[in-house]
């Protein structure tokens, strides 16, 4: 049987993988993709709780509602971020995060 723990571990794993990507990748676009992984990890976590825990009548739908919002926000965030990255690319001809360190110290 699938248990809550399965989903939680999967979520944790995906979250960590996404985090690794954020921390290790050079391309801004790939960082963005890694963030999507993290957000999906959240969704896995949420669906796990939503499915396996009884929240009573009033909150039954809340888990899935949350997921919908997360997906929405994730998509919008991705779009906006890509717009900004494109802008960056036009100004600097690079999306390499190593190279965007004019602002520091």
């Amino acid at each position, binding site marked *: *049987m699938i248990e809550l*723990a*399965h*989903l*939680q571990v*999967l979520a*944790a794993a*995906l*979250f*960590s*993988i*996404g*985090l*690794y*990507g954020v*921390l*290790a*990748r*050079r*391309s801004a*676009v*790939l960082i963005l*993709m890694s963030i*999507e*992984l993290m957000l*999906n990890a959240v*969704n*896995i976590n949420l*669906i796990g*709780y*939503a*499915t*396996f*825990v009884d929240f009573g009548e009033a909150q*039954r*739908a809340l888990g*899935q*509602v949350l*997921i*919908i*919002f997360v*997906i*929405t*926000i*994730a*998509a*919008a965030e*991705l*779009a*906006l971020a*890509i*717009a*900004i990255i*494109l*802008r960056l*690319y*036009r100004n600097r*001809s690079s*999306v390499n995060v*190593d190279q965007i360190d004019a602002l520091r110290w």
Partner: protein
Amino acid sequence: MLSQSLVFFYIAAALVIIGGLGVVLTRNIVYAAFALLAAMLGVAGVFLLMFAEFLALVQVLIYGGAVVIVVLFSLMLTRIQDFENLTDHRQWPLAALLAIGVFALLVAATLTTSVRVVERQSLGFLELGESLFTDWAVPFEVASLVLLVALIGSIVLVRTSGGRD
């Protein structure tokens, strides 16, 4: 003895994990985009296993149909020559360590927390819709504003004008 659902779950989980690892490990950015797609589909699979058909559908539509396409477009618009030899910076072992740390933390935390669970329960379309448009109408409206801002913002930022680009 594996139950049928568990097998499906493992398949979906494997898809998710492999896709995820693909995104963060591959040296070719196009592969990464497809790995992301795979992971997203895996997540959709998980949704299905949790009887959340609507979410699975949304997941496939938004991620498969929109997000990955947008990502690919953006890749096309930026520098092609970088596509095939992506490198990670020198911080990656540290990043790996930290990621493992976070994983350990989350797993340890969840596993040591006892949750009173019930059988998997499904949620009907109607119920979800009604909840979304009554109980959560305000956040829903706000979310629309968020999308609007993202839209306007993207246009403003990317639109060329005056030939300065």
